[in-house]
């Protein structure tokens, strides 16, 4: 088996199954185990934190590729991004169904009034176009440049998700700050990378003379 085949046939399915594990854990415990004294809170917190984790993992791939030179990492971008959307959808649906009994007016009131919901809702809504345009067909239709530009929305999603987490906790901001640091490093890596590229291009460029 070639490396490409190995990745496609073994690693990818393994990553897929591993990414489903948190969902499996929730479903298993809901029916056969125990989600604790406040199951709704457990579901909300678990789906929320896994959304953020998958956002961070997705954002980590490009810098990692840059650092390690291991290009097949790019093959996992869509899958991990879609898992971020999957857990984000579960997180939102838990809130929509169990906190607001499917009444959108209540959700909207929160979005307008409560900064942590504004941030969380923004993070979620911005993932929708990314999930919808995640296919090869959409990349073709939009063209690589425009598609790339659109998918930079994930940066805003990441920032909004971290803010959402930070504003939600009552007292102990250790974990939100830890994720904020991760996101800062991953976005910072992109700025740095771009600056280097720009520098590399700018230096050999000939001095332009006005005629």
């Amino acid at each position, binding site marked *: 088996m070639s490396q490409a085949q190995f990745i496609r046939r073994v690693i990818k399915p393994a990553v897929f199954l591993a990414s489903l594990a948190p969902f499996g854990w929730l479903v298993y415990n809901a029916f056969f185990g125990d989600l604790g004294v*406040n199951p709704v809170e457990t579901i909300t917190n678990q789906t929320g934190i896994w959304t953020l984790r998958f956002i961070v993992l997705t954002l980590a791939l490009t810098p990692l590729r840059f650092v390690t030179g291991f290009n097949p990492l790019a093959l996992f971008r869509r899958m991990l991004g879609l898992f971020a959307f999957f857990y984000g959808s579960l997180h939102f649906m838990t809130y929509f169904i169990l906190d607001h009994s499917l009444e959108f007016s209540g959700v909207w009131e929160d979005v307008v009034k409560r900064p942590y919901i504004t941030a969380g809702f923004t993070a979620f809504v911005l993932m929708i176009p990314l999930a919808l345009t995640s296919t090869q067909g959409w990349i073709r239709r939009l063209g690589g440049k425009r598609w790339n530009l659109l998918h930079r929305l994930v940066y805003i999603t990441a920032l909004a998700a971290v803010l959402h987490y930070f504003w939600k906790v009552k007292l102990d901001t250790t974990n939100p700050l830890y994720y904020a640091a991760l996101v800062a490093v991953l976005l910072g890596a992109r700025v740095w990378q771009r600056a280097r590229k720009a520098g590399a291009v700018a230096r050999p460029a000939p001095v332009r003379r006005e005629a």
Partner: protein
Amino acid sequence: MLINKSPDIRESEVTPESWYVRRREFLQVAGSTAVAVATGAAGPLFSGTDTAFAQNPAAQKLANLKKSPLSTDEKLNSYRDVTTYNNFYEFGLDKGDPAKYSGSLKPSPWNVVVEGQCAKPGSYNMEDIMKWFPLEERIYRMRCVEAWSMVIPWVGFPLADFVKRFEPTSKAKFVKFTTLVDTKQMPGQTEPALPWPYVEGLRMDEAMHPLAMLAVGLYGEVLPNQNGAPIRLVVPWKYGFKGVKSIVRVSFDEAQPMNTWQRMRADEYGFFANVNPAVDHPRWSQASERRIGEFFKRKTLPFNGYADQVASLYSGMDLRKFY
């Protein structure tokens, strides 16, 4: 001669005592949880009724309890709900931490110091305090400021009876309660999560209200450590954080005490902390709550459903300002 022989292992490699004690406690809890799950005691999420865990067989039972007419007839939360899910930052910030880590608290012997503007200050032994008043069971709603709630069968006596015993003077306008500080017994206090000790207070008329009580037990048993053993405050029309636990000091004060959460974040938590669906927490709504054991949220009632009894205490006050 070499006197200063260096030890075999470095200081930094030694596991601190508090860690391995905690680890043992954790393993014990984990072990018993595993047994509970294996025997099906921890009911599945969708089983409908959450059967109460067996109460603690080792706990001292409290006999001859008076049933209080002030009790609600709502469905009780299980013993497990009440004793494994609560905030008691002295043992950690997670709501499961108090049950896991409160084994180090020694609620006996225990003294409560009474001081300030009263005729009979002094240090009183908990064993004596237990004999002062007939114990009664009171089933109250408990509404946490985090928008969840429970129904809990407390055992205790009216705070008013306790207060009267010390004959507060006319200068006593407030009662201040203080929790124990002892990092050995309360490992969470090694972290500066809150400015220790935890302090709470009531206006005198609030303290004298018949609904306010001091609890020494729940579910017919002596108060478990994680719920504030051996003695704690219960004020059912206020958010749960007013219910200061493991009280070692009661003070009759002229000035309004600065309670811990107000000191932490005055814009989010006030002195009165009356349950009020019309005044939101700056970050979340207080209009509804999740009753533990229910899936959908229910509406929060003014003064947690005790408005008929207590609203008059606050007539003329702007409850938006005095939240």
